[in-house]
């Protein structure tokens, strides 16, 4: 098992490394000169030249990439051209806000997804199954920014239950956090809940028709134990991979959620960085987000081995 884990870790590092090259080159294809965008059109040429020199923008691209990577190992992600402060600080300040919405949404999405998936599989064909399945298709098919707006309109503008903006971090006040973070969390977890419940439902239906379920029934085991012990464990194993895939959607979704609920998180930072061609901020954020996604997949892959004895033995 350990040699498998080491191989997977190295593969992930390689992926992140290639992702960094991919991200770096794509971003440098963005039209427009970042310094001009940052300092404004009227600024005299020498200042522009001086700032370009300062940030090694005139070096050949591969060299710039290497300096960026080397500095990154020293914890220096480069500076923002707009805010004149290290990208590392920006990330340190804003990433917690994205995670304050992302992590609860991730957990809520898994729990609700599993619950709905199991209930609609067990009650297959009945009314509750049809409603839940339709609700799941709705939650997958609905654009997050529209749901956000709808929730804002209903619960903030009309009913005043929740504030429209300025997220309160849990550190400051739990109640404030709960009130301000509820809508974004609901909005962000819908997509994940939908895809997990679909996957759980189809796995459960498939597992329930397997031979060993028939053997369990023939041995006189009660229907409840069969579904919630024998079938459930087999059905949940493949769901783990869907959870891995969804980790990345949670963070990608943050871009929209933070835009609507005006939460100054990583998502908004990235969108602004694209519009302002703020290279280092964009590179740094995208890399961190990709790192989280790849790391998430790695954890899921290893977890998969421990849950399913067949895989554990094969990798042993």
């Amino acid at each position, binding site marked *: 098992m350990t040699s498998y884990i080491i191989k997977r870790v190295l593969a992930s590092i390689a*992926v*992140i490394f*290639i*992702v960094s090259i*991919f*991200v770096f080159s*794509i*971003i440098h*294809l*963005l*039209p427009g000169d970042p310094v001009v965008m940052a300092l404004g059109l009227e600024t005299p040429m020498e200042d522009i030249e001086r700032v370009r020199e300062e940030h090694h923008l005139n070096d050949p691209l591969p060299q710039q990439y290497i300096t960026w990577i080397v500095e990154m190992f020293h914890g220096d992600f480069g500076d923002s051209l707009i805010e004149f402060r290290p990208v590392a600080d920006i990330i340190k300040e804003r990433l917690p806000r994205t995670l304050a919405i992302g992590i609860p949404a991730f957990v809520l999405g898994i729990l609700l997804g599993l619950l709905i998936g199991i209930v609609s599989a067990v009650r297959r064909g009945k009314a509750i199954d*049809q409603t839940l399945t*339709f609700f799941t*298709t*709705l939650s*997958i*098919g*609905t*654009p*997050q*920014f*529209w749901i956000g*707006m*709808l929730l*804002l*309109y209903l619960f903030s*503008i009309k009913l005043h239950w929740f504030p429209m903006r300025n997220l309160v971090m849990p550190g400051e006040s739990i109640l404030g956090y709960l009130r301000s973070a509820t809508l974004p969390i609901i909005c962000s977890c819908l997509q994940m809940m939908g895809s997990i419940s679909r996957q759980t*439902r*189809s796995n459960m*239906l*498939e597992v329930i028709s397997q031979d060993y379920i028939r053997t369990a029934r023939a041995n006189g085991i009660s229907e409840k134990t069969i579904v919630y012990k024998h079938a459930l464990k087999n059905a949940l194993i493949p769901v783990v991979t869907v959870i891995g*895939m969804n980790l*990345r*959607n949670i*963070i*990608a*979704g943050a*871009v*929209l959620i933070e*835009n*609507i609920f005006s939460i100054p998180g990583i998502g908004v930072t*990235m*969108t602004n960085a*694209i*519009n302002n061609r703020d290279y280092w901020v*964009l590179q740094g954020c*995208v890399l961190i*987000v*990709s790192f989280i*996604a*790849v790391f998430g997949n790695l954890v899921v892959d290893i977890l998969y081995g421990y849950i399913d004895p067949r895989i554990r033995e094969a990798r042993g």
Partner: protein
Amino acid sequence: MASSEDLKLRRKKNMEQFFRIFFGRGIIVKICLVIAVFFIIVAVFAPVIAPHDPTATDPMNRYLPMGSEDHLFGTDRYGRDVLSRLIHGARTSLTCSLFATLWSAVVGSTLGIIAGYYEGWLGKLILRYVDIQLSVPALILSMVLAVILGSNMFAISIVLGIGAIPGYIRMAYSNVISIKENDYITATRLIGQKNRKIMFRHLFPNCFASLIVIFTMSLGQVIMVESSLAYLGVGLNEPLAAWGLMVNDGFASLMTHPSVALLPGFCIMAIVVAFNVLGDALRDALDPKLRGKL
């Protein structure tokens, strides 16, 4: 050869069976089919149906409420008729997304089949590419690409297509890997058939059912991404009528005139959900064994 009635009879029976399973999921499928067809008709006949020119501003009567006589759905911030913008928005979204889904389906499934059939370094390379593209947050990648390629309809459909390719590659790859184990593939090799022919006469038709399902579902997904890009101000830009843009535009006046923002959002949801439901129904009808699998 077989008598033609016998052939016609069997074909009729197959069609009946197809539609029975297709509509087997109940009334929802019928509703979604109506929604999808409705939007397609609206998109095709947009210029004819729309009461006003979607881009004509009328500063005099901005923010007219719903139901005012000349503007059924009222007007937006610049006094443009919301209804005509919705109609033209359908055309923009559908054409853009349909084209994107089509070309990415062809490219994606071909790459997936090749990766699955030739499993060697070529297969690994294609799969590694998919992992890399999926590691980068999809929306950010699309935004960057949209800015690079420009924001006309053609460029946006390229960007949307790139986003949809990994789904096709993975689906085609996993299908081909399992189909390859069948004896009829070995038999076809033994009779001297060329690899290229095997791929497109045997592998492609057999994963066609699941590719169709992915096609309908990614059509919905692509419309959502297109509207998200427009919402983030990176995709199609003013004054073109696009649902995402309308939602972004309407957000400013959410407090006072919610309909300007909520109506286009509702259209997006309706068509995306419709395509997803049709995708599910199509999957069951095309291949009963796949029921509940995808």
